[in-house]
C-alpha cells in the first residue's frame, strides 16, 4: 500500500509539473501571436478594455501606501482581461525597488524616486518610472493644541526640537509631542523635503509609528501631539494644519499652491512587456484616474498642473 501511494504521489507530482509547464507554454504562445500581430500600443489598449488577447501574470510589490490602489485597479483589469493574473504584494518601497531592479517582480511600487533609494545609480537608471498618482501630506495636530496654521519655519523649529510648547506658536500651553515616521519612511522623506526643506534627526522622546492608522490614533489621543498624514487619512479626530497659510486641499495641490506632495511610482525594469504596459496604461486612463484614484484618496497624476523632477524642481506643465 505504502509503495502504491508513493507511486501515485510521484505520478501526481509529475502530471502537475507537466500541466504547469504546458500552461507556461500556452502563455508564451499567446504572447507570441499578439506580438506577431504587430499590435500598436493603441491597439493593445482597446484590447485591454474589451478583454481580448492579453495574458500572462504580473507581479507587483513595494509601497504599502500605494498597495490598496494597485490592488483595486488590478482587480478591475483582471475582470476585463481574463487571461491576466496580477498579484500585488506590500513590503515597502525599498523592497519594491530592490525586487524590480533584480527582476524578481515586474513592477516595483515606490513612494519615492528610485534615485533617492537605490545607492547604485546604474541600477536606478535601468528602471522606467510610471507616475500613476500623487499623494499629498498635511501636518496635523491634536485638536486641543489650539493652532490652525504653521509656517515652514515654525514646523522646522518644532521638528528639530527648538520649539517645544504650543504656546510659542500661538496655541495652548501644552508641551509638543512629535509623532514621527521611521527615518527610512517615504512619507517622512516627502514631508522633510517639501514641508521642512531639511532632514531632521530623531528627537529624544519622540514617538515613531509605522502605519498611518496608528499615527492618526496617537495624534488624536495624545495631548499636544503633532505629526503628518496623507490627505486620505484626515478626519475630525485630528486637526489639519494649514502650511504657510495654504490649506492642504486637493485643489491646492493640483494647482501647485500646496507643495507637500509626492508621486506614487510604479517602476519597471527596462521597457515593460505588453501585458505590464497595458496594465500601466490602464492606470492612466480617465476611468482609473478620476475613478479609483480619487475614490481611494489619492490625487490623479494626470490632473496635476505642475510636475516635479527627481531634484525637486517644480515646473508648470
Amino acid at each position, binding site marked *: 500500500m505504502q509503495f502504491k501511494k*508513493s507511486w501515485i504521489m510521484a505520478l501526481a507530482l509529475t502530471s502537475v509539473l507537466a500541466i504547469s509547464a504546458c500552461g507556461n507554454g500556452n502563455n508564451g504562445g499567446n504572447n507570441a501571436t499578439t506580438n506577431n500581430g504587430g499590435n500598436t500600443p493603441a491597439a493593445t489598449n482597446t484590447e485591454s478594455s474589451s478583454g481580448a488577447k492579453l495574458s500572462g501574470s504580473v507581479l507587483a510589490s513595494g509601497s504599502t501606501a500605494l498597495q490598496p490602489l494597485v490592488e483595486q485597479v488590478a482587480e478591475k483589469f483582471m475582470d476585463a482581461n481574463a487571461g491576466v493574473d496580477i498579484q500585488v504584494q506590500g513590503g515597502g518601497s*525599498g523592497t519594491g525597488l530592490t525586487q524590480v531592479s533584480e527582476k524578481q517582480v515586474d513592477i516595483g511600487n515606490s513612494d519615492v524616486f528610485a534615485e533617492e533609494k537605490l*545607492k547604485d545609480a546604474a541600477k536606478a537608471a535601468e528602471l522606467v518610472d510610471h507616475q500613476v498618482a500623487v499623494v499629498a501630506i498635511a501636518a496635523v495636530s491634536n485638536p486641543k493644541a489650539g493652532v490652525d496654521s504653521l509656517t515652514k519655519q515654525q514646523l522646522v523649529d518644532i521638528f528639530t526640537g527648538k520649539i517645544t510648547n504650543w504656546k510659542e506658536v500661538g496655541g495652548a500651553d501644552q508641551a509638543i*509631542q512629535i509623532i514621527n515616521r521611521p527615518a527610512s519612511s517615504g512619507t517622512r522623506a516627502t514631508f522633510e523635503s517639501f514641508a521642512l526643506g531639511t532632514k531632521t534627526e530623531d528627537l529624544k522622546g519622540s514617538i515613531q509609528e*509605522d502605519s498611518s492608522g496608528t499615527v492618526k490614533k496617537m495624534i488624536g*489621543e495624545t495631548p499636544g501631539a503633532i505629526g503628518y498624514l496623507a490627505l486620505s487619512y484626515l478626519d475630525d479626530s485630528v486637526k489639519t494644519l494649514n502650511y504657510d497659510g495654504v490649506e492642504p486641499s486637493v485643489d491646492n495641490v493640483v494647482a501647485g499652491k500646496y507643495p507637500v506632495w509626492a508621486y506614487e511610482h510604479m517602476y519597471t525594469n527596462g521597457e515593460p512587456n505588453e501585458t505590464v504596459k497595458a496594465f500601466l496604461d490602464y492606470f492612466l486612463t480617465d476611468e482609473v484616474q478620476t475613478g479609483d484614484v480619487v475614490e481611494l484618496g489619492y490625487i490623479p497624476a494626470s490632473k496635476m498642473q505642475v510636475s516635479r523632477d527627481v531634484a525637486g524642481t517644480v515646473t508648470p506643465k
Partner: protein
Amino acid sequence: MRGQPTNKRLEKHHIENLIGRIYMSFCVLLLIVIIVSMVYFVASKGVANFVNGEVKVSEFLFGTKWSPEADTPSYGAFPFISGSFLVTLLAALIASPLSICAALFMTEIVPGWGKKLLQPVIELLSGIPSVVYGFVGLSVIVPFLRDTLPGQGIGVAAGALVLSVMILPTITSVAADALASLPQNLKESSFALGATRWQTISRVILPTTFPAIMTGVVLGMARAFGEALAVQMVIGNAPFVPHSLFESASTLTSVITLGMGNTTMGSPQNNALWSMALVLMLMTFVFVLLVRMLERRNKI
C-alpha cells in the same frame, strides 16, 4: 509452504522500514539544510557592513547614535540592544511571579478545578495574535499610563507590560509541568515532618523545581526578546537609551520591522538591520544554551 507467508510479511516489513528510514533521513537532512542556510544567510548579511569596512563592530555594538539617513550616517545600535534587554528583563520580572503563582495554584493548591479553569485560560493567551496585543496595549495600557503616570504612556513600561502578558503562558506551562513532575514522596515526607503547606511549598517544592522553573523564565525571555509587532506599536521607537520607564525607546525587533521594507537590499542601512538580526539570533543561542545548562542542573 508454511514459511512463505512469514517470509513475505518480513519482506513487507523490511520495505516499510526502508521507506520510513529514507523518508525520515530526507526530512532530517532537509531540516539541517534549512537551519544551516538560515544561519549562514543571516550571518553573511549581518557581517557584510563589518567586512567591507562600512561600520566598525565596536561602533555598531556600543555607538549610541543611530541616524542612517543623515549625510554622514552613523549606525550605533546600542539604544536598541539596551532597549531589547530592558523590556525583556522587565517583562520577565512582571510575569515570573504571576506565572509561578498560577502554576503553584494549579498543581499544589487547587489541582482539580483550579487547573481545569486556569490552564485553558492561560493557554488561550498564547493563541492571541501579536497585533491584537499591540492594539490592546495601544488602546488600554497606553491611555492608562498616560493618565496616571508621567510621560505620554508610550514607552518602555507599556512595552514591558504588553510583553509580560504575552510570555505568561510560556512560563506558566513550563513551571506547571515541572511542579507536576515532582516526586510525590518529597511532599509527603515534608508533611510527615509536620511542615505546613506554605512551608512545604517555599522550602521543598520551589527549591527543588527552581532550575526547571528558571527554564520556563528563560524560554519566556527568549520569546519576549524576539517579539516584534506588539512591542513596536507601544514602545515609541525613538532611537535613544531611555532614562525613564515612561520614555520612548526602541528594541532590535522594532527597528528591524520598521526599517526592513523601506530600505533597499545591500544598502549599508539594510545591512545594519541584518546585523541586528544577527545579534538577535546570537542572543537566542545564548538563551538556548542557558536552558540547556539549567536542564543539566535539573537532572542532578
